């Protein structure tokens, strides 16, 4: 721990500065937790209590009715089958998208790192530049391309789209990892006569397990939380949970059911939150690996 040098002796007495520090941490932590708390208590209250009571008050008699309604019968537009439709759509989008984007990204990263290919650096550099470009630049041409190929808006389209837009980050992740491995490993395998795909499948990928975990976390949260790509490319039968959630909350006619809205919101946030709290430091590692481009 590098922080050990920070505070000098007297660990027992708490100085005023220390009190200030803990007060700061407490207040900021409350600010960050407030929305989560309000979501939870709102989702457990009946509407009458929400209308009369206080946003921050605990529910008088907690009930899961709003959760059941959000899951099974909340209305998105014309259909009233709950957010579960979106949940399963998101799941069907998520699994193939994560697997394929990691396969393609790791293979690209592997080819760009260990094999001396002419133009590899140019290709890699170009991919890093486009990783920053807003989707709005690509979206319309891609819609045309996919309708031209006959795929239109479909599950296959949205999976392809997630693979395409995940490629720069996935490539970066695996390229940097493979570059950090001892090159002798690769050379020894080549001398033993192993081919390109053999080295990839038998040596490199098994060694890249930590990076695969990071990539799965990064892609799972990213794809689950996507809104704009799902909206444009998934098609009406495959709309992801985020899009359905927005429809449930923002296109309600008549009085809004805030408890159902908040239950649906929590349900949508559930998977990324489970991934986040379940993965601990791996999530931070994913941020560091994905964020520090280059």
């Amino acid at each position, binding site marked *: 721990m590098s922080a050990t040098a920070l505070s000098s002796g007297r660990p027992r007495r708490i100085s005023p500065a220390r009190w200030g520090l803990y007060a700061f941490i407490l207040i*900021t932590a409350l600010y960050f937790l*407030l929305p989560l708390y309000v979501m939870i208590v709102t989702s457990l209250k009946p509407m009458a209590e929400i209308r009369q009571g206080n946003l921050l008050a605990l529910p008088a008699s907690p009930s899961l009715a709003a959760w059941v309604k959000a899951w099974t019968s909340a209305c998105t537009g014309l259909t009233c089958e709950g957010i579960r439709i979106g949940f399963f759509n998101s799941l069907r989008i998520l699994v193939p998208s994560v697997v394929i984007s990691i396969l393609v990204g790791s293979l690209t990263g592997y080819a760009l790192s260990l094999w001396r290919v002419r133009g590899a650096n140019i290709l890699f550099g170009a991919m890093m530049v486009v990783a920053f470009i*807003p989707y709005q*630049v690509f979206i319309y*041409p891609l819609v045309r391309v996919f309708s031209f190929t006959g795929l239109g808006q479909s599950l296959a389209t949205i999976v392809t789209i997630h693979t395409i837009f995940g490629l720069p980050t996935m490539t970066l992740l695996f390229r940097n990892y493979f570059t950090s491995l001892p090159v002798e490993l690769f050379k020894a395998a080549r001398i033993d006569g192993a081919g390109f795909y053999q080295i990839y499948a038998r040596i490199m990928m098994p060694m890249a397990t930590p990076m695969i975990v990071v990539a799965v976390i990064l892609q799972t949260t990213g794809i689950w939380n996507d809104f704009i790509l799902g909206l444009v490319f998934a098609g009406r039968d495959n709309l992801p949970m985020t899009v359905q959630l927005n429809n449930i909350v923002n296109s309600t006619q008549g009085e809004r059911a805030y408890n159902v809205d908040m239950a649906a919101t929590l349900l949508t946030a559930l998977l990324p939150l489970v991934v986040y709290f379940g993965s601990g430091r791996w999530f931070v590692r994913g941020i560091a690996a994905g964020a520090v481009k*280059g």
Partner: protein
Amino acid sequence: MRLSLTSRLSVISALLPALMVMLVVYIGATSWTAWMSLTNSRMLPNNNFVGFRQYELLLTNDRWLTSVHNVIIYGVLFVSLALLIGFLLAVAIDQRVRAEDTIRSIYLYPYAMSFVVTGLVWQWLLNPTLGIQHVLRSWGFAGATFDWIVRPETAIYCLVIAGVWQASGLVMAIMLAGLRGVDDEIWKAARVDGLPKWRVYISIVIPMMGASFATAAVLLSTAVVRLYDLSVSMTNGGPGIASEVPAKFVMDHLFERANIGLATAAATTMLITVIAVVAPYLYWRARKGEVR
């Protein structure tokens, strides 16, 4: 070493998806968007060249001007506040506090949530009838007003509040990694010299963390240009057009208002802005990489 033909074919086959994506998606789509912005395409693309007419229209379009104005306000406030708060949180955590892991998880969890979720939660919190304003009044502050979300002049600041809440944890994580990279010797030397801690942070540590600040700033800036989900879910651009943003302008004109020429002109303007921000950063990183 020289590659055999089979190896060479294998490498090429592995790079084929990336090459295709580069050529078709990125270069192809970008050029097509740029070309469309020079035509008078409405609902369907056409090739009637009209020069920079769409850009002229853009500059007199109220909705676009509001969008640009909003994204500038949002961008400046969001980036500076997230950097400031994120840095302060990282410094606080770096003081050998108890339960460090728990505190860090609390600061960072909003980043795991989508912008749609973020927007909807804050829409509810900022709801004037039943949200925070109502709480303040019920506590006895009868005249308390916090109705920013329904007022055109202030709606964009609500997006800032939500955005900062979502992204400060990310900055904290990046900054904490930077702080942990500061050499212990510096702290020891500063203590020997009797420098107060805040002086050390301002005069020594912050200047050393240029890379962390740059990384965080660039990440936040790209999020600013991409700002779309939050505006859609929180205010849907409203009240009126008060919280419209450029990304939403493009989407609406592509898919609802059937004005491809104007939409692609707006998209191209966004592209040029991003390149102007990102190119110097990538160049700087590449230069640094060479030195290292």
